[in-house]
């Protein structure tokens, strides 16, 4: 019987059938970070358990660390406590940890693919909803809460209920100015922020096959913004070339054995999905969000909606509340809206290809005087690669800040925030109320769109900037 990639990975990892669609699933890898990792390991120990497979667990501080140039653990004192606890628990349990400044440190979902901690066909869990990012290499990766994390650490398994499957095929040639970020934002706008609830999404189609591995990570990153815990892309030669030789990639004969397994992963041509959709690439333009949910998104040439045109009264109230929070008038064009802050970073868009795309837009120009612009590379490795190419000079010359790796302004759990009322074009993944700081107004967009906004001081269409 034809099966999907998701089915194959799921079935292979079933330790026990628990009934009613539930399975006890084995986890090949667990990632932990500073915000919840130390506490979860502490709870495991206090309950009398040990970390079951410490060699399969990897830790990196990212959420509650400062991104200030020259930062230390102590720069954000509240986070320093979490970091100390993570260090102590990792040492006690024999878990590998990539500390600040070390190769391997950075945003957990940037580090896992770049170190080949995540591989095709693996199951991976982490106490962070953007764990779905890792599906870009062809893994089944999903976010969990604190209790599930304790369970995962103590048993290397999780009881999970089998989700449905949702395939989204992006077909055709990519129009100018359209990035992976624009593709996934357009999909969320079309299908809604809840469309993927209870689903595992597989992204497919000619435009996905043509993507770089880093672009696939961006695509999968926003799966959770469509409601799906899992997003994945079938592995192919692009994946294998990316992974070969990386730190934790199999080597020698093990690599050959892995390749043989990985080539059998992609969904069968006749496989059936619970839901199957096609998006024509020609229909996608550069995107920008206008509201406080990622589904509140438009082509950059669009405008803020008029609540009286909403399909129902509840939606009308919801749109009005979002417009009020965002300080936008109904029907206002997005282009030309004044921007105060620009953030290039996060597990969505902080890889070296993202930084190249942003630097490409600069062409010797400077940021608008009133704009604060931050570039936060996703990891120590990204930072080193970008600096080797001289990207940091180009950002610094344009008046951008070049900062240290971490979640920074995506999550505002680190003492860093966009000020109340300030408008920020951000390459991150959430435009929720208060996400980037109390009262902060977030517009999600691609790195190129964000860089262009910093130069213009307003939202602009990157295609003619």
């Amino acid at each position: 019987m034809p099966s999907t990639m998701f089915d194959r990975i799921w079935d292979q990892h079933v330790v026990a059938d628990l009934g009613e669609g539930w399975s006890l699933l084995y986890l090949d890898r667990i990632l932990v970070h500073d915000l919840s990792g130390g506490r979860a390991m502490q709870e495991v120990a206090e309950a009398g358990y040990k970390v079951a497979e410490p060699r399969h667990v990897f830790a990196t501080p990212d959420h509650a660390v400062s991104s200030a140039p020259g930062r230390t653990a102590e720069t954000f004192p509240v986070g320093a406590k979490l970091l100390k606890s993570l260090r102590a628990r990792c040492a006690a349990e024999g878990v590998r940890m990539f500390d600040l400044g070390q190769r391997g440190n950075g945003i957990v979902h940037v580090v896992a693919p770049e170190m080949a901690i995540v591989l095709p066909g693996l199951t991976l869990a982490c106490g962070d909803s953007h764990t779905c990012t890792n599906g870009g290499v062809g893994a089944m990766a999903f976010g969990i809460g604190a209790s599930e994390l304790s369970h995962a650490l103590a048993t290397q398994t999780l009881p999970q209920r089998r989700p449905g499957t949702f395939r989204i095929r992006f077909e055709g040639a990519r129009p100018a100015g359209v990035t992976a970020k624009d593709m996934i934002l357009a999909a969320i706008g079309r299908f809604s922020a809840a469309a993927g609830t209870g689903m595992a999404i597989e992204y497919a189609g000619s435009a996905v096959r043509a993507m770089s591995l880093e672009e696939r990570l961006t695509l999968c990153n926003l799966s959770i913004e469509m409601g799906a815990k899992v997003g994945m892309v079938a592995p192919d030669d692009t994946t294998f070339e990316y992974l070969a030789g990386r730190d934790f990639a199999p080597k020698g004969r093990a690599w050959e054995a892995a390749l043989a397994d990985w080539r059998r992963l992609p969904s069968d041509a006749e496989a059936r999905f619970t839901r199957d959709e096609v998006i024509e690439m020609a229909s996608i333009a550069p995107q920008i969000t206008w509201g406080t949910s990622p589904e509140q998104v438009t082509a950059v040439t669009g405008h803020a909606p008029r609540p009286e045109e909403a399909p129902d009264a509840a939606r009308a109230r919801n749109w009005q509340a979002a417009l009020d929070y965002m300080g936008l008038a109904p029907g206002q064009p997005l282009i030309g809206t004044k921007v105060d802050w620009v953030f290039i970073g996060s597990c969505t868009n902080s890889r070296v290809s993202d930084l190249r795309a942003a630097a490409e837009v600069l062409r010797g120009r400077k940021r608008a005087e009133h704009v604060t612009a931050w570039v936060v590379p996703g990891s120590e490795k990204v930072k080193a690669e970008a600096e080797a190419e001289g990207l940091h000079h180009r950002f610094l010359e344009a008046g951008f800040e070049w900062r240290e790796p971490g979640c920074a302004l995506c999550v505002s759990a680190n003492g860093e925030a966009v000020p109340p009322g300030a408008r920020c074009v951000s390459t991150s993944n959430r435009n929720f109320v208060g996400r980037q700081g109390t009262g902060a107004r977030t517009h999600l967009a691609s790195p190129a769109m964000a860089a262009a906004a910093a130069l213009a001081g307003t939202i602009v269409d990157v295609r003619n900037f």
Partner: protein
Amino acid sequence: MAMQSFTTVTGPAIPLMAANVDTDVIIPIQRLVGTGRDGLGPYAFERLRYNKDGSDNPDFIPNREPYRGSPILLAAENFGCGSSREGAVWALMGMGVRCVIAPSFGDIFFANCFQNGLLPVRLPIEEIRRIAEETGASPGNARTTVDLARQVVVTPTGREIPFQVDGRKKEAMLQGLDDIAMTLKQADAIAAWKARDQAARGWAWESVA
């Protein structure tokens, strides 16, 4: 690892009714960095709940009588979307909520609820609106009851609306069972799976050994 058992709850159902209520709004992340799980109640919905001077915002429905402190919250679709933070569940429970009724929930939030004894009930939006209307008709004495054992919501007018709940989760919640202890009963199956997999997929093990 601290599950409160759940049997029935009763109270005036709070008609929050918003869609896409994300876990960032339920509990700002700044509070999770510095506050323990038992201290989060006062910060639940912090950005909606308080005025700038720290006083209660009367426009926030859960602040109004008779809803204040009620264990039942009504919402529209995709409640608890976004971040995986379990603090959202701890904060809701800290403000007294034991059951959220919504047409759909964020998947991670939904799983987190069952880990702690907060019952998420899925009902069609029309039913939720009717519960809100019945409550609004006589807010002083309208009471809704959620009965997990019988899997029914009893509305203020006495209508019984059945709801689905996973059998496994229902038992765990009724009894307040610890998931880890349940899983470790499968220790032999886990060991057997590992032995099989190390033979079949040696590459997945050797690369991190």
